């Protein structure tokens, strides 16, 4: 297909050794294994979209790669070394993890939040120096929130907050970014902006893993997609390789159609479901016995 050719110009199997690698990694919680023996490598400059149905384990995988969870078995490697070989701060200088749905407490200012990204560079007794401030200012300028620097984070919109949190992870100056649903719940403009930032950062050499729900958005911006479902990795490749009706239908447990938008030539992905009879019966009850129109 011809869509967004320039996006996929980088070959999906890069000759570089993987910067971040999972080898038969099983992730989950004490009593619940979420993903079994997943393996993949992420090279420098890749923008990888993690897709899959709700509850498939995308966030659990991200948490494990960000060391917020310990793997149940298998190992994840960073620069060829196991993740737990790094000290907490050394790891945070290499991998910046943006957790899903961060809710700020206390009315810190935007600048204070962004400066928190400099934490891994400071000894316990140090305060932020001039260099740290410059990095934070640059991160705010890059994400377009410099004018908000002194605003309190409880006064800004959800889209702006997401920019602030992006600025914070950028201030960490890490080669790897793990973004867990950074675009979910945002306006279209902010969603696309976030992916444009991600694409530019990946082009500049960062390795980015991002959890995405919007499949067409993922297809437009990511150089590679990893589809997670049924407790395993179901597909891994370019958007054209992964976004096939058969694969998606199996992953999402429903009939998924994959088309192309006539104007934009972007992917158009939708489900085809017949509402079962039971649903119709329930609807009649929910609308009142005589039905909605009878009431009025």
């Amino acid at each position: 297909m011809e869509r967004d050719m320039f996006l996929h110009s980088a070959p999906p199997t890069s000759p570089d050794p993987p910067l971040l690698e999972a080898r038969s990694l099983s992730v989950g919680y004490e009593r619940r294994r979420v993903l079994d023996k997943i393996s993949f490598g992420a090279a420098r400059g890749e923008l990888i979209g993690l897709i899959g149905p709700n509850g498939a384990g995308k966030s659990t995988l991200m948490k494990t790669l960000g060391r917020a969870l310990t793997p149940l078995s298998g190992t994840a490697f960073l620069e060829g070394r196991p993740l737990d070989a790094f000290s907490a701060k050394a790891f945070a200088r290499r991998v910046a993890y943006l957790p899903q749905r961060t809710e700020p407490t206390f009315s810190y200012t935007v600048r204070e939040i962004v400066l928190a990204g400099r934490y891994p560079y400071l000894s316990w007794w140090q305060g932020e120096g001039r260099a740290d401030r410059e990095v934070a200012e640059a991160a705010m300028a890059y994400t377009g929130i410099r004018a908000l620097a002194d605003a309190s984070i409880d006064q800004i919109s959800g889209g702006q907050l997401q920019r602030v949190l992006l600025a914070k992870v950028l201030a960490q100056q890490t080669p790897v970014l793990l973004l867990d649903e950074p675009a979910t719940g945002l306006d279209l403009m902010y969603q696309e902006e976030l992916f444009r930032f991600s694409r530019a950062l990946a082009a500049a050499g960062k390795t980015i893993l991002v959890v995405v729900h919007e499949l067409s958005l993922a297809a437009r911006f990511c150089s590679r997609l990893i589809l997670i479902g049924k407790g395993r990795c179901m597909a891994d490749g370019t958007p054209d390789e992964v976004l096939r009706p058969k694969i998606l239908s199996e992953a999402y447990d429903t009939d998924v159609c994959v088309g192309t938008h006539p104007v934009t030539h972007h992917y158009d992905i939708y489900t085809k479901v017949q509402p079962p009879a039971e649903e119709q019966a329930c609807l009649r009850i929910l609308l009142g016995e005589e039905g909605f129109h009878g009431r009025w």
Partner: protein
Amino acid sequence: MGVGRRGKAAHGAFPVLVLAILLAFFFSLCAGQYDIDPLAILEKAMEMLGIPVRSGAPLTAEQEAVLLHIRAPRTLVGFLAGAGLAVSGAVLQGIFRNPLADPGIIGATAGASLGACLAIGMGLASGMLLALPVAAFLGAIFAALLAVALAMRHGRIGTLALLLSGVVVGMFLAAVTAAVLTSLDASKMQQYLFWTIGSLDYRRWDHVLLGLFPILISALLMMALSRHLDILALGEAEARAVGMRVTAYRAIFLALAALSTATAVCISGSIGFVGLVVPHAVRLLLGPGYRRLLPASFLAGGAFLVFCDAAGRILLPTGEIRVGIMTAFLGAPYFLFLLRRYVYRI
């Protein structure tokens, strides 16, 4: 750090606080049943600072004794207790990310009450001056350790677990205290009741010395580490993501907060409201950044308690309104005023 809309308040805050402390100290030295001319007190203070003043009416030996051995230690104990409670309240609110956290939340106050109750019950309190404070201190530390130990799982201290274990430990110890109390005679019960209201009566230099080092050292350490509190206040996931060893820092701050709370309760009895309200008031005026919040809470908490104690003696000249009552009487309306005036989202 971020100034902006809070900038104006921030720049003037510390001189104002120092002025407030001086005023509160002066009030506290003037107030009491024994009549002493305020000018003579001022003169004495100048003289002690090495500034000779031509004297009008010098203090009598009796007046000097009242000032130096009754009012001065009382004032200093009040300052230390207020400062310690306010700083640990501010720290605990950050650790728990909860606006209702106060020094009582990790069970320390209930533990101190049990310690005090046992000391009174065994008849130690009337015999030895320091038996009651030491027992209260040990009780507070014991309760805080118990709450933290119960909340600890897999080497992590979850805030919700700690919140609940602190409350439950507090309730359990309160029940034990009640059980002990019912077996005491009326005079001992009254002694305990007075202790729970919190007072600065009969405080001596021993109390000042007892409280000085634990409170000063724990407060200074918390201030030195205040940048880490800003990270902890962002939440566990965020703090881990920037490479903080969350459990270690939580444990350090909990230990320091428990130490300063226990010491404050030990020298002044159980005084409510300071640890909850003062940090909030300061946060409203200066913002949540801990680098300013902690020193300002320390000074404001100390000044507030000294002022409450002095006001209690001025309002009821024949006796005194106990300071634990005054903190609530003055603190609640002031806090509600702040709450209505500023849009407050924690």
